[in-house]
């Protein structure tokens, strides 16, 4: 079996374990059999646990695929929607909307997040325009600074208006209290994002080449940038609208996958999607299962787990994770 095959098998196994743990584990552990026996347990599993696990799976997949796409098209291994301030823009829009009295239903939240993400994307792109085109380094530096600025603004608004508790999920990330409305939103987003990237994976793969070689092979840039924008907007806005601003996944998961099984965009799309989904589901289990009665901040947990993984990669190269 090839290294790639072993990796896919391992990740699929971990994904299934993560789904099982997240569904049946947590502050209260359920027996898998209680799904089929009517009662309170069944109601909790179907009404709360199922939508929560589904949301974690899809948000993880969306963030990881969005990150992989942005890294590929910007020729930058540390690009990620959250580093460019796109997630922060969506968060700010949601907080402003919430504070000014918009009822944050699923539809409203999705729309606000999309507007915020779009505005942030346009501003960061304008910051990065230098001379004839978009300078990748300016994009990254401008995005990082802008992201920090927007996040501070979000916290400031929330603290001043005494709404940090109301926006807890949004600010520190989390899946508590999600229902099937959010599941449907994420399902639509996942179909758009995974569909577009899968159908155009051959073209996106070529975007990793230098610009001239890319043109010489007969590919066309404007259409692909348009598609990239749609995919990244939808992925970032929908995940922020449901689970708040969660960093690391978009940056770290594609990196981790590429370190273990180096490959092109189309080769690593599937493994990255599975790893992102598994990572987020496992993180959600940790959030609700580690300290009884408390939900740990998901964004912080994601950053800690991811930080350790990335630190390992940097410090030990690929030696520790040879499959």
């Amino acid at each position, binding site marked *: 079996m090839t290294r790639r095959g072993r990796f896919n098998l391992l990740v699929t196994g971990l994904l299934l374990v993560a789904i099982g743990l997240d569904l049946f584990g947590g502050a209260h552990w359920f027996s898998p059999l209680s799904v089929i026996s009517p009662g309170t347990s069944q109601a909790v599993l179907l009404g709360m646990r199922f939508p929560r696990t589904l949301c974690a799976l899809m948000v993880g997949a969306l963030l990881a695929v969005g990150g992989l796409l942005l890294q*590929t098209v910007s020729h930058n*291994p540390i690009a990620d929607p959250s580093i460019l301030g796109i997630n922060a823009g969506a968060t700010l829009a949601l907080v402003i909307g919430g504070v000014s009295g918009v009822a944050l239903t699923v539809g409203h939240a999705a729309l606000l997040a999309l507007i915020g993400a779009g505005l942030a994307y346009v501003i960061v792109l304008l910051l990065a325009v230098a001379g004839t085109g978009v300078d990748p380094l300016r994009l990254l530096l401008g995005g990082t600074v802008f992201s920090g600025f927007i996040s501070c603004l979000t916290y400031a608004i929330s603290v001043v208006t005494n709404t940090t508790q109301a926006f807890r999920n949004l600010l520190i990330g989390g899946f508590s209290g999600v229902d099937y409305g959010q599941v449907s939103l994420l399902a639509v987003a996942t179909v758009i994002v995974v569909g577009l990237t899968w*159908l155009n*994976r*051959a*073209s996106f*793969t*070529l975007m*990793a*080449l*230098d610009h*001239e*070689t890319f*043109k*010489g*092979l*007969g*590919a*066309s840039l404007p259409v692909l940038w348009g598609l990239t924008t749609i995919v990244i907007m939808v992925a970032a806005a929908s995940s922020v609208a449901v689970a708040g601003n969660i960093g690391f996944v978009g940056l770290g998961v594609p990196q981790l996958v*590429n370190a273990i099984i*180096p*490959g*092109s*965009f189309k*080769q690593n799309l599937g493994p990255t999607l599975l790893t992102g989904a598994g990572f987020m589901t496992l993180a959600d289990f940790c959030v609700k299962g580690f300290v009884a009665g408390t939900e740990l901040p998901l964004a912080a947990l994601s950053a800690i787990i991811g930080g350790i993984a990335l630190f390992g990669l940097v410090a030990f190269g690929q030696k520790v994770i040879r499959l």
Partner: protein
Amino acid sequence: MSTIMAVQHLSAGYGRTTIINDQTLTIEAGVITGLIGPNGSGKSTLLNVMNGFRAPLAGRVLLKDRPLSTFNHKQRAAEIACLTQHPVAPEGITVAELVSYGRYCHSKGLGWLRRRDQISVTEAISTVHLTAFKDTLVSELSGGQRQRAFIAMTLAQNSPIMMLDEPTTYLDLPNQLETLALLRQLNQVHKKTIIVVLHDLNQAATYCDQLVCMTQGRVNAVGTPKAVLTHELLATAFHVSADIELNANTQRPQLTNCQPMAAVAQ
């Protein structure tokens, strides 16, 4: 011989800077045409207009008697394959993966690699003698092997025309000669029309059938190496004096004892 490409009253440049002004040129099918000229003479600009990367400021480029601008991206790539000066491969891809990118211009719809594509890729890799390295990462190849991998990628495009911008510049001498020999093989065995920018005039004279010399945005001379490489051209275009000898075997001119004109004047 028939004309495969023509440049008519072409002006080209960047923004408001005109580099090439009202130049006309034809490229014969099935020959190796070498673009020579000093730095900044407009060789790369001419190449980038002829391969469709840049739109001309005025005039037009004809490919098989049809304006190049009427070809869409994929159609153009199926006719002209380009190797740029600094091709960059993404991290973590194998030679076979890189070469398969050449099939993009023939893909339809979802872009699955069909059996015919796989055959083209395998053939291209074996033509550049990299079969043993097909599963090696491009980043682990030597400079010469890397260049051959990119040539294989352009070969997989299966286009009648290949354009290469200074393919030998970053290679050591054996790899330079190997690359040029490969181009000759592609021309003779695969009947490719090749347009190549070269700096070494002796290599250009040895490996090209036609030379086009550019000076300050003008086509200064066109013809066989013997007709183009004259004392007068060396003086006007390159400010160099040299002894020109015909090689006994190849009957191609070779320069020896090259001196900058300033030194001769002293």
